[in-house]
């Protein structure tokens, strides 16, 4: 029977990781994290409008260690999602679908994401004086 000789569909746990699938799921994961960041943004704006006391509360949380980890994390996920989003928009126009192109754009996005995230972290540390 022909069907019995077919390979089983690859199970996720033994599936060899590729940059394509890893970047795809990372796009989703960073998108979900960014969506949480949107709620933090709303809190920041509400605190800024409410007055000095509310803003001091927000600043205390944002300046704490978990707050800083979250902010630096948001910087990284935002940069990655934005850059890889450009890749997706180019695909939506029907361009860049050849496998070598997909890998080239993937590595480009990773390199640029590292550079821009590094610059942002440096700017954040430099301006905030937390270094």
């Amino acid at each position, binding site marked *: 029977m022909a069907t019995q000789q077919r390979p089983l569909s690859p199970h996720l746990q033994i599936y060899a990781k590729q940059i394509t699938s890893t970047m795809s799921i990372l796009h989703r994961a960073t998108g979900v994290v960014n969506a949480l960041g949107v709620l933090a943004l709303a809190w920041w704006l509400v605190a800024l409008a409410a007055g000095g006391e509310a803003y001091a509360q927000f600043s205390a949380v944002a300046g704490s260690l978990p707050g800083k980890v979250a902010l630096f994390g948001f910087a990284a996920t935002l940069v990655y999602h934005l850059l890889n989003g450009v890749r997706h928009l180019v695909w939506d126009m029907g361009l860049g679908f050849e496998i070598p192109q997909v890998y080239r754009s993937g590595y480009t996005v990773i390199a640029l994401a590292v550079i821009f995230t590094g610059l942002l972290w440096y700017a*954040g540390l430099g301006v905030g004086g937390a270094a």
Partner: protein
Amino acid sequence: MSRLRHPWAVARGLGSAKEGVAHWWAQRVSAAALLFLVPWFVITAVSLIGLDHANARAYLAEPMNATLMLAFVLAVTWHARLGLQVVIEDYIHTPWLEVALQLLVKFAYALAALASVVAIGRIAFTA
């Protein structure tokens, strides 16, 4: 009159949910807007880090900054809501939980958008 239309003309592009590619397209339109608004927001956010409350508020009260922040908030809440909707559709298969999460996301991001708009309005008009 509508009977004169071929059924294909009615069904084309609409799919089983009868709303066609509206969600897909809205996700791309908001993405295109965010392509410009996110870099502006990131630069603004970094330049606001060291400022105290009064100065940060005064900075955002400037008409251009308030306008762009409004645009960013509306685009990003829309984009986030659309994205989370798809994530829930893809991974949550327990009917009551899926409906509950979809409602929670819709309400949470509508509220986040409204609260942000009100906050920006207060900052811009009481400067």
